[in-house]
């Protein structure tokens, strides 16, 4: 098996990483950006490696970027989504995992609605490296690495900067992973949401909590908007209406201006225009949203390389 880089056997969550590992992954991602902008987007780093993308939840950008990342590095990439998998025939998660692992891939990239899916499967799949591509409301490490690479390139050092995350914190794996990363990397996180969208004891992460979006704008360097799952919002009484949500927590031009000219806008996607973010903001010069998508490919190339791109041990 290839020797993993940076002391990484798996990539479960930001919470399992240290500063050096995060920095190494981001820097390696930075190195890969170049390949993505060439006319011939191919490198032999992962030739002979097999990567399976196993997605039990819908995903466009994460799954596609893992696929492109693997292919540009010459890995053999297979995509499996829940709708085409044996899960529909009643197969358990564990059996699906073990079945795919028996085909000897180097890496399984997994997205599942159950938090801790990778931790759970790793107890049974000994020789397969696992990458968490989002597990329930728990963690989404490659999104955070993507964001850190984007911020590195647009702002330089993130240390001491303030990121204000707005929206459904309770159900957001991205928010949790950022709150963990902030502590490790030395940036500040403010979170903005009504109490109905906050998890218990969220302040234990060391973040500042706001219910009033406008009060959180001053001193913010990055406005990080979370997608609102509109079906979750109203049926669970988390919010009375989309209209009131947009009015209270939506990012419009007025709020962006109030945050100051230095402030940049991020969103992990997919966006609901007119709900958490106004169209003119999403399309403005301050938006880093498409850079995030672009850098997502590079960071996933780095993650795959870290787990299976090292020298082969026989």
């Amino acid at each position, binding site marked *: 098996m290839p020797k993993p880089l940076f002391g990484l056997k798996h990539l479960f969550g930001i919470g399992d990483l240290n500063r050096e590992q995060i920095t190494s992954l981001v820097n390696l991602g930075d190195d890969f950006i170049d390949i993505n902008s060439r006319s011939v987007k191919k490198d032999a780093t992962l030739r002979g490696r097999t990567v399976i993308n196993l997605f039990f939840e819908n995903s466009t950008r994460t799954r596609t970027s893992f696929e492109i990342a693997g292919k540009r590095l010459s890995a053999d990439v297979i995509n499996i989504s829940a709708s085409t998998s044996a899960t529909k025939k009643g197969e358990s998660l564990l059996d699906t995992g073990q079945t795919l692992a028996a085909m000897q891939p180097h890496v399984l990239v997994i997205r599942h609605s159950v938090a801790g899916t990778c*931790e759970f499967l790793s107890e049974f799949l000994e020789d397969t490296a696992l990458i968490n591509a989002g*597990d*329930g409301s728990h963690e989404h490490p490659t999104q955070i690495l993507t964001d850190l690479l984007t911020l590195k390139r647009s702002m330089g050092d993130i240390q001491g900067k303030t990121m204000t995350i707005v929206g459904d914190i309770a159900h957001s794996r991205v928010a949790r992973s950022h709150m963990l990363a902030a502590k490790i990397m030395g940036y500040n996180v403010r979170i903005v949401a009504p109490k109905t969208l906050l*998890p*218990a*004891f969220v302040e234990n992460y060391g973040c500042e909590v706001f219910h009033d979006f406008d009060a959180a704008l001053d001193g913010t360097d990055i406005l990080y908007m979370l997608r609102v799952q509109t079906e979750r919002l109203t049926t669970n009484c988390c919010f009375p209406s989309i209209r009131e949500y947009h009015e209270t927590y939506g990012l419009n031009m007025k709020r962006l201006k109030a945050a100051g000219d230095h402030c940049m806008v991020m969103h992990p996607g997919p966006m609901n225009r007119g709900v958490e973010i106004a169209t003119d903001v999403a399309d403005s010069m301050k938006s880093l949203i498409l850079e995030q998508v672009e850098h997502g490919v590079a960071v996933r190339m780095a993650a795959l390389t870290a787990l299976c791109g090292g020298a082969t041990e026989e």
Partner: protein
Amino acid sequence: MTDILITNGRVIDPANNIDEVCDVWIENGTVAGVGKFDGSAKQSIDAKGLIVCPGLIDMHVHLREPGEEWKEDIESGSQAAVAGGITTICTMPNTEPCIDHAGIVLQVIARAKEIGLCNLRPIGAVTRNLKGTELTEMRELSRSGAVAFSDDGKPIWHAGVMRKALEYSSSFGYLIIQHAEEKQLTDGGSVNEGWVSTQLGVQGMPVEGEDSMIARDIMLTRRADARYHVAHISSKGAVEQVRLAQKQGLKVTAEAAPHHFALTENEVLNFNADAKMSPPLRTEEDRLAVIEGLRDGTIEVIATDHAPHHEDDKRCGLSCAAFGIVGLETMLPISLDLERAGVLSMSDLIAKMTSNPAKLLNIPEGSLSQGNAADICIFDPQAEWTLDREKLFSKGRNTPWHSRTMTGQVQYTLKDGRVVFEKGSLKA
């Protein structure tokens, strides 16, 4: 000549205020005497250094028969019970079909008698099919052998139905046992709501789910002058409410499960589905409050909520895993920690697993009174052993204590004056 003589043990029989080193002798399957025996015996057991007490009672057990025998059946559950020193189990009615008709009460009792390892005293359903809408025929269920009533696992959420259940049952002196959980607060949750659930990104079950239903039930119990028992109490707020209700003279009682006084929510930080149960493991503050409730007598009973599951239902990720852990074979060693920590005397601890539940359920077991069936547990309070879930007698492997060291081990279990378990093995 007596049949069996147990000598030199420290005999603890809380119902009769006995705690002394003496003999117990058995004739015709019943306790013939406790004291100094003079004479000969067909069989004798040297209990030097051991504790001799009434066979333990576990008033909160799920045996899955009829309906889900692959998880547990009355035979494997009976074996697990006697391996844990337990000779009387009260089984919850959430079988398939559920225990809401006399025929099923009679069936499970007959099956346990056939196996002959331990007494099975079923708890009947409060409502038909555990649906929470129409009352069961409690009179007939009681006549058939049901010792209390509960819709355990399916809390009686409708306040009007609960009021009527308390009023009707108390007209005849029956005990209502409630799994107190306001599902509208806890639905979709897997673990205690708090910092642990937040870190895991798993939906939590707020403590108010338990506390608010107990608050409501206590009010209804007051009006009905009923007998209300809180199953597996797990929160500080719940213990405080039960304590206050008792001070006010209400017939409110409670039981605690070993996992709720031994473990906290930190057990699930690694997504361990074998530490998932309902009510969930809670905070250290809650755990200490349960211990204080046991110490001051607010909580009279220790019961396990033994809930065997097939591994397929546990090996699917924390939020998909079934609720519950097995408990029959770990009740005694885990509970003995309370004595070792100075929370309870050995006698008071044993009372919570013998005479207290017997009194609450109005059953004859749980004492060594002369003429009583000789159901006896003999254990070594110091013996250390390592729990191996593969060696459990229960079909369930779902225990959070796998590979941990247990202190306190059952040496002999006697049922009706017959040794049914001895030093790790069942006796034919």
